[in-house]
């Protein structure tokens, strides 16, 4: 389990907002141009720091949703009701505004095509963001690693990256993507309904005998259940990598 990341001092950079995409009414993807960005691996995250005129500061971590792309870094932010950072990023920040950020951070919950597979990506809500960086890296590199991606949302309106995921899924190319809606589904919904329980996970994930590499990201309860079921199904615990979002303001 020794780390392989290059130990490098992480300094704060002043990054400019260069693009903004509304993914859902509550979720936006923000792309920054970060001077001297050293590149990153899919799955890594950044820290964002905001400073008020009176000197008050707040910091939060956000997963990067895109593979390395020069000095461009995209995060996907879910607006939380009490979240003074997330609401600033989604409601106040405009193109050409600047924020302080540093990274990349984390070197364990990462995947790049050279790591191989088969690859399992299991995300709940905005926990899909770092998995999207991995999926985009797989597609962008033209890698042949087979992928099964499972995404869990409350309602159809919560689905982020919907058009891109649909396009990738329709290409086939060794990638399957399954959505489930846990709270309510509209008429004509073609995906699954209900939580990813033991039965669903045994049907939809790679058989343990194929020694898949599985990344699970989402709220704590979601990750606890999914990772525990995968272990029960016979997956090697060290090939299940997790990232949990606490149920806290951001």
């Amino acid at each position, binding site marked *: 389990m020794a780390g392989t990341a290059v130990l490098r*001092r992480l300094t704060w950079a002043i990054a400019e907002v260069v693009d903004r995409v509304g993914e859902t009414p509550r979720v936006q993807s923000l792309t920054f141009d970060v001077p001297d960005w050293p590149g990153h691996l899919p799955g890594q995250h950044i820290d964002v720091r905001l400073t008020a005129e009176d000197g008050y*500061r707040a910091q939060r971590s956000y997963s990067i949703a895109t593979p390395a792309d020069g000095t461009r870094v995209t995060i996907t932010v879910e607006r939380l009701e009490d979240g003074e950072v997330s609401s*600033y990023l989604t409601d106040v920040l405009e193109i050409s505004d600047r924020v302080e950020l540093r990274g990349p951070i984390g070197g364990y919950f990462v995947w790049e095509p050279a790591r191989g597979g088969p690859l399992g990506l299991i995300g709940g809500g905005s926990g899909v963001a770092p998995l999207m960086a991995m999926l985009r890296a797989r597609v962008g590199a033209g890698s042949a690693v087979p992928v099964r991606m499972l995404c869990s949302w409350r309602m159809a309106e919560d689905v982020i990256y919907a058009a891109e995921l649909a396009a990738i899924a329709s290409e086939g190319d060794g990638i399957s993507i399954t959505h489930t809606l846990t709270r309510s589904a509209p008429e004509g919904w073609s995906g699954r309904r209900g939580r990813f329980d033991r039965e669903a996970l045994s049907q939809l994930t790679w058989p343990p005998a194929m020694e898949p590499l599985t990344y699970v990201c989402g709220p704590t309860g979601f990750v606890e259940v999914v990772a*525990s079921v995968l272990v029960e199904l016979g997956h090697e615990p060290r090939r299940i990598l997790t990232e949990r979002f*606490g149920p*806290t303001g951001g």
Partner: protein
Amino acid sequence: MSFVSRGFRRRQEPDAPSDRVPPGQYVTHDFPVLSAGPTPRIGLDEWRFEIIGQVDKPRGWSWQEFTSLSAEDVTVDIHCVTKWSKLDSRWHGVPVDALLDGAKTSADHVMAHSYGGYTTNLPLEDLTGGRAWIAYEYDGEPLEPEHGGPARLLVPHLYFWKSAKWVRALELRDTDTPGFWEGYGYHNYGDPWREQRYSGD
């Protein structure tokens, strides 16, 4: 202060005195979880805790032996590198001082080892002097597996990744080597009051 975020202001009144919340942290009332993999499940009949490495006599305890040791109630503030702090968290556990009592060692460093393979490194002196415990109850209840049960290291004066969940051994060492997160660029020492989040901070 040079950089100001246009239009950003404090939305929430601080609900804790600033001398209790280290820089860059915010107070949460939940108890979030951060783990790199599935939660290991360790049966109490197979659980053991050991002091190993550079020590005159290695020592170890079964669950029954360990929970028969004299334990303390401690109420402490904890600080996670992912930015949340939790004030007045209540624990019950055995002081590391008691576990090391009488041990002869030349070691200056410790590697904590956990069930599931997690490791973290600390200076030995940070585990002594009434500053560290092996805790097995939280808020009056047995410690939940997702929070590190059956037992976890509790070193509240350092960022919480140093408080190894599912701890199974403290290895006394003459040399310092990085543990799990330290090897991925997190700070070797991790003092929240000096905001030592990452290597070089």
